[in-house]
């Protein structure tokens, strides 16, 4: 019994001597922006998960907010 206890203690003590793997990580996979956030602050006019609707919405938003020639002339 004492013999087994000593082996157990030795295993616990030697476990600290093990080296942790140092393999380089890679970035976690990111979900696409068109899948949405589910936030209440989401801009209206498109449906989360619909890539085409998201793209069209962003293009329209860009024209409306940044192209002042088309807005004012």
């Amino acid at each position, binding site marked *: 019994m004492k013999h087994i206890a000593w082996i157990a203690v030795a295993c616990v003590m030697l476990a600290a001597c093990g080296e942790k793997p140092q393999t380089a990580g890679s970035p976690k996979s990111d979900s696409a922006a068109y899948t949405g956030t589910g936030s209440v602050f989401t801009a209206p006019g498109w449906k989360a998960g619909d890539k085409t609707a998201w793209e069209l919405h962003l293009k329209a938003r*860009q024209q409306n907010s940044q192209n002042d020639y088309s807005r004012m002339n």
Partner: protein
Amino acid sequence: MARMKFVCDSERCIECNGCVTACKNENEVPWGVNRRRVVTLNDGVPGEKSISVACMHCSDAPCMAVCPVNCFYKTDEGVVLHDKDVCIGCGYCSYACPFGAPQFPSQGTFGVRGKMDKCTFCAGGPEENGSQAEFEKYGRNRLAEGKLPACAEMCSTKALLAGDGDVVADIFRNRVVQRGKGAEVWGWGTAYGSKKAGQAPETGAKS
């Protein structure tokens, strides 16, 4: 969709720093880090020009090329993002970037660099879209909310254009035609040109 791109119209930028403030506020950027800065060329000289500078999300991003731990990735829309859980804060990306975009918080013990922080095109990071973890590490994910980067949407003179590259080019081209000058686009060739990033521009060519 074409790639997401930034361009700053130096004929319009009035150095108000609204873009800098919008970015800091929207993403709660840590003290000591500015993801976006306004740079003035020939400051104080008549005809001085100002431009708003941040990560340009290059086509052939040099930061991605030099990162020893491969923490960068590019989304389908061409936005260059990075994983802070993989970044070791070595700073190679800041030396490689022609725009000085990568920033490092300096609150580490004995001046140790923290994880790199940079403009995300308001597209968050690899955490779950819209989650608290994503916001704390990378800031708000406006793209996934159907919005464009806060800096461009906040720009009072619409000098800073952001979004679909085709639309950006269309808006800028129309401006140049209308006003008959100011066709120089600072950084466009370096970030989105066909030549390899980091190489010297051809003689007389605009960068």
